């Protein structure tokens, strides 16, 4: 049978629809297959996770635990720093997921193909970032497990604390999606990594209490730290994992409220910026270039 005959029996386009979650699943599957095809990356990613945990473990043997205790986050610097760093890595990977995905599509030359299908652009956006987000979450858990293997972390894991930690993690990410969208909008246009986001990242790292309690910061900087969502997310997650507080507690609710507020203010702006950038690139005919 000729191909034309086969085609004559195929249904025309638009008669079937693939459900939204399956489409997202296709992006995740594709991302995993590409990652898996770089055997060296797989090895390096695993090695990287183990080595950064080791570094903070050695650090913890040097730093005294008194100041951690004074700040109200349990007994151990290692536990404090590990939660901070693991979450910070997780956040950074999530924030960058979209811009990195776009950069990859540009390099591979698949940007135009991707947008020439019948899938809407918000679905493509979500699909693009979802794989890396899952990857980041897996490494977060892996980092905590490696840490636990090195000595007692003293994490308090009950159903209520795990649920609380998950909710806080989710809103930690949504509060930073806008930053990711700004970055992706820039990358779409200038075809390079975005320096503004790298700067924000360092700033965030230094001020949000990733490695030390913000109580140690000079007052002016501590004040700035109060405006950053990561500060609230880390405060909440540490209270939950290191002290056993839950969503029922007022401190956690305060943190969550701030994250929600930040999300609802910034997310629309991020989406707008990305949409503008896409239009501009489509106008200039530079969608497929790198």
């Amino acid at each position: 049978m000729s191909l034309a005959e086969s085609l004559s029996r195929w249904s025309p386009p638009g008669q079937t629809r693939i459900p939204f979650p399956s489409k997202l699943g296709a992006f995740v599957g594709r991302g995993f297959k590409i990652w898996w095809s770089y055997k060296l990356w797989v090895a390096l990613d695993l090695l990287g996770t183990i080595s950064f945990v080791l570094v903070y473990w050695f650090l913890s043997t040097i730093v005294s635990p008194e100041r951690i205790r004074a700040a109200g986050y349990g007994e151990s610097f290692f536990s404090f720093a590990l939660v901070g760093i693991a979450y910070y890595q997780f956040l950074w990977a999530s924030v960058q997921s979209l811009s990195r995905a776009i950069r990859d599509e540009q390099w591979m030359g698949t940007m135009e193909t991707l947008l020439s299908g019948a899938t809407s652009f918000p679905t493509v956006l979500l699909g693009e970032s979802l794989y890396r987000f899952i990857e980041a979450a897996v490494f977060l858990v892996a980092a905590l497990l490696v840490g636990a293997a090195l000595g007692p972390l003293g994490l308090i894991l009950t159903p209520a604390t795990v649920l609380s930690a998950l909710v806080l993690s989710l809103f930690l990410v949504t509060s930073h999606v806008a930053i990711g969208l700004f970055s992706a909008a820039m990358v779409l246009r200038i075809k390079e990594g975005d320096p503004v986001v790298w700067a924000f990242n360092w700033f965030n790292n230094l001020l949000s209490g990733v490695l030390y309690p913000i109580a140690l910061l000079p007052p002016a900087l501590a004040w700035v730290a109060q405006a950053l969502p990561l500060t609230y997310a880390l405060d909440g997650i540490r209270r939950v994992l290191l002290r056993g507080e839950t969503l029922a507690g007022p401190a956690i609710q305060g943190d969550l409220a701030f994250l929600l507020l930040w999300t609802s203010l910034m997310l629309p702006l991020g989406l707008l910026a990305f949409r503008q950038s896409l239009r501009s690139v489509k106008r200039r005919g530079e969608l497929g270039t790198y």
Partner: protein
Amino acid sequence: MDYALEVEGLSKTYRKRKGFKVRETPALENVSLRVRPGEFVGLLGPNGAGKTTLLKILCTLLLPDGGSARLNGFDVLKQSEEVRRSIGWLHGETGGRALYWRLTARDNLRFYAYLQDVPPRVARERIDTLLDFFGLRGDADRQVLKFSTGMKVKLMLARALLHNPPVLLMDEPTVGLDVRMARETRDLLRSLSAELQKTILFTSHNLTEVEKLCPRVAILHRGRLIADDTTPNLAARLKTREIVEVKAMDAWRPAEVHRLQRLPSVKSVEADGENTLALEVDEAPQAILELAQALGTMGVRVQHIAQREPRLEDVFLHLTGEPTTATKPPTPETAPRETPE
């Protein structure tokens, strides 16, 4: 729906900022084109004429400055998702870059099936059929990075057909294909148009291919549509003129071409293949006598001189007034040339 493709006054200028200046490259100027369902139209034009620009606007990958375009009844600006569902697009120029090289051929098609809303169960059967047709069944589970250029183009063709779209926008689909596969692809496109009433817009620099394949031809030149007619009609435009072909042993020098141009019976001279000139003349027999004499006095060693039927290529060269990529202009004066003994 009367037209599968309805383009009205489409304009596009690329703007790039360079320091304080904005560089403008006009690519399409007021282009209008109507194509009925099932028509097979060849879109021709020299490099940079605006063919890819037009096709990308129709795929919604590029926003026009002015004018409108409807595809399969959907507006490219307002109903872009429906438009993309209705088209199979292929950009042969990319040489296969538009695929995920780290994935296998089958995984590439599977992922695209998701993007085009073809459910996995349906997609599986279609993918097998397509891979069979394009002779890729044996390579289905190899990574695309190990494919040759032609294999990648075949895979892109398969991808363009996967969702069975009514309109095919084929931007140089036969680039990089070997002789047999190029021919099979032409046969496929012909039967898709004839038997399944697919609407096809096809660009190629191979005019013989277009002449054989497309009953209708549109020619873009510097962003303007300068011709749009049936292929026989276009060829007949030159029927009032006759073509004499002169092939020399050596490359032509500009001075020689100039002298031929000044002969009273010669209307125009175009390069036409290796050491060959195509001359438009009023009456071939008389012109051949005149030419033979002139060539003799110039000392040009002639290999072959004869009248021939006007071809699409002659019309193309006549209308666009410049040689195609396939034919090089005569060699410059600096090129060494033996003098006849």
